[in-house]
C-alpha cells in the first residue's frame, strides 16, 4: 500500500508542483496518472523514488514513512522501486544483458545470481535473443524493454513509469503497455504517468487526473479526460 497524505511540493514561493495530494494505492494496483505537462505527474513519481522530498505531508510505502528516510537508506528504497523513463537512460556502451546486469551488480548481487537472473528477466520482456545487442542497434520499443528489464532486476514491489511511451509510435507503445500489464499481473504495483489518451482509454484501469498539482479526478476503470 502506498499512501500520500496531504503531500505538497513547493519549488518556490509561488510555484507549487503538488498541492495537498491525498491518495491511496493498494499493493498490486495499476494506476495511470494523467494530466498536462507541468500538472505534477513526474513530481509525484520522483517523490516515490526519493529523488525529491515533499515540502509537506507524508508518503508511506508499506508502513515505511519515506519522507523521514535517511540519506543512506535511499539506495535501499530505490532497489524496491523500479523506475523507467521516456528517454530510457541506458548505458550506450553496454549490451542489453550488461545494462541489466549493471543494476544487479550495483545492488551487490552475486555473479552467479546475475548470470542466472538476467536471461530470465530478458525473457520476460521478450528480448532474450537480443541480449548481446547495444542500445543503438535496437528500436525505441526494444530499448524501453531493456530499461524495464533493468527496473525489474531487483524484483521491485513498485514500478514507476514516467512517460514510457513518449518517444514511441503507437504500435511500440502498446507493446510496452502490454508488458506493464504483464508485470502488474505478476504482483508489482505499477504507476504509469502518461498523456497518451489511447493507452489510458484502452487500459480500463484506475485513472488519477492531476491539474495544476492537485488531484481533480480519481476513477476506477477511468478514461483520459482533461
Amino acid at each position, binding site marked *: 500500500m502506498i499512501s500520500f497524505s496531504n503531500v505538497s511540493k513547493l519549488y518556490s514561493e509561488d510555484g507549487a508542483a503538488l498541492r495537498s495530494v491525498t491518495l491511496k494505492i493498494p499493493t498490486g494496483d495499476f494506476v495511470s496518472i494523467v494530466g498536462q505537462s507541468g500538472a505534477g505527474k513526474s513530481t509525484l513519481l520522483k517523490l516515490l*523514488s526519493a529523488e525529491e522530498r515533499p515540502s509537506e505531508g507524508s508518503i508511506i510505502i508499506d508502513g515505511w514513512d519515506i519522507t523521514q528516510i535517511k540519506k*543512506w537508506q*535511499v*539506495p*535501499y*528504497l*530505490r*532497489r524496491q522501486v523500479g*523506475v523507467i523513463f521516456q528517454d530510457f*537512460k*541506458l*548505458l*550506450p556502451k553496454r549490451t542489453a544483458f550488461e545494462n541489466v546486469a*549493471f*543494476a544487479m*551488480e*550495483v*545492488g*551487490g*548481487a*552475486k*555473479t552467479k545470481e546475475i548470470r542466472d537472473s538476467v536471461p530470465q528477466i530478458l525473457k520476460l520482456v521478450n528480448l532474450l535473443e537480443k541480449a548481446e545487442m547495444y542500445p543503438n542497434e535496437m528500436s525505441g520499443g526494444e530499448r524501453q524493454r531493456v530499461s524495464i528489464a*533493468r*527496473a525489474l*532486476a*531487483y524484483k521491485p514491489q513498485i514500478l514507476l513509469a514516467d512517460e514510457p511511451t513518449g518517444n514511441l509510435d503507437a504500435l511500440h507503445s502498446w507493446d510496452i503497455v502490454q508488458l506493464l500489464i504483464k508485470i502488474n499481473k505478476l504482483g508489482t504495483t505499477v504507476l504509469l504517468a502518461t498523456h497518451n489518451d489511447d493507452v489510458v482509454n484502452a487500459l480500463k484501469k484506475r485513472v488519477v487526473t492531476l491539474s495544476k498539482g492537485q488531484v481533480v479526478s480519481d476513477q476506477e476503470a477511468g478514461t483520459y479526460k482533461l
Partner: protein
Amino acid sequence: MTMIKTSSWRILRNALQNFQRNIWLSLATTIIMTLTLIMTSFLYFLNVLGSEVLNTIEEKVDLSATFKDDIAEDQISIIAEDIRSRADVQEARVVTSEQALEDFRARHADDPFIEESLRELEKNPLPSTLFIIAADPRQYQTIASELETERYEPFIESVNFENSRTVIERLIAVMSGVRNIGLVTTVVLASLVIMIMFNTIRLAIYSFREEIDIMRLVGASNWFIRGPFIIEAVMVALLSVIVSTFVLYPVLETINPEVQRFFFSGQAEPFSIYSYALSHWTTVIGLEALLAVGLAVFSSLVAIRRYLR
C-alpha cells in the same frame, strides 16, 4: 560478507577501468604527483644532510693549535700527551705536517695546478696541528688560554678558536633559508597536485555522469559510486611513489660522491646520503606514500562530493 567481497571486487574493477579509460589524465596526474614527491624527498634529505654537516662541524674542530715550523715530532707528542692528560680534554689529536700535506694532496688529487704548485715549493707549507675536543664545550676557553701561556709559547704558533662557531651559525642560516624555499616549493607543488587531481577526477566524473546517474537511479550506495574514484586516486598515488623511488635512489647514488667530497672531505667514514636513504627506506617510502595517498584521497573526496547530494 560475500556481498561486501563481491562489491569490493567490483569497485576495484571499476577503478581499474576508470584509470584505463582516462589514461592520459591519469598519467598527467601521476607525473605531477611524482614531481611533488621527488621535491619533498629531496627536501627531506637536505634536512638530514644539513644536520649531519652541522654535527660534523660541531664535532670536528672547536679548538686547534698550530705548531711552529721547526718543532720536532717528539716534542709535539709530549705536548699532545700533556694536553690529553687534562681532565677537561676529551681528545687531542695530532696531524703532522706530512699528514696534512698528504690529506691536502688527496683532497685535490684531480687538480693538476695544486699538484704543480706543491712541487715547486721546496718546503712543506702546512704546519703540524693539534686538534682538541673538549669534554664540555664550555671548557674550550680555559683550554685555549692554557695553550696561550708562556709555557707553550716557544712551540705554538697560534691557537685557533671560535672560527668554527661563526661558520656553524652561518650554515644554520643558509640551511633554514634553503629549507624555507624548499617548503614553499613543496607547498606550491602540493597545491598544484590537489588542483590537478581535483580536475582530473572531475573530468573523469563528468565522463561517467550518465553511469553515475543510472547507478543512483538503480540504488547504488554512495560508497559504490565513490569507491572507484578514490581507489583510482590511490592507485595514482602509489604509482607515483614507485616512480619517484626509482628516480630518487639512482639520483642519490649518483650525487653521493660529489656531496661527500663537498661536505665531508677528509673524514675516515664520510656520511653517505645514499646509504642513509637505503637504510631508512621504510621511512622514506612510508612518508612518500602517506603524503601521496593523503593528497589523492583528499582531492578526490572533495571533487566527488557535489555529485553525490
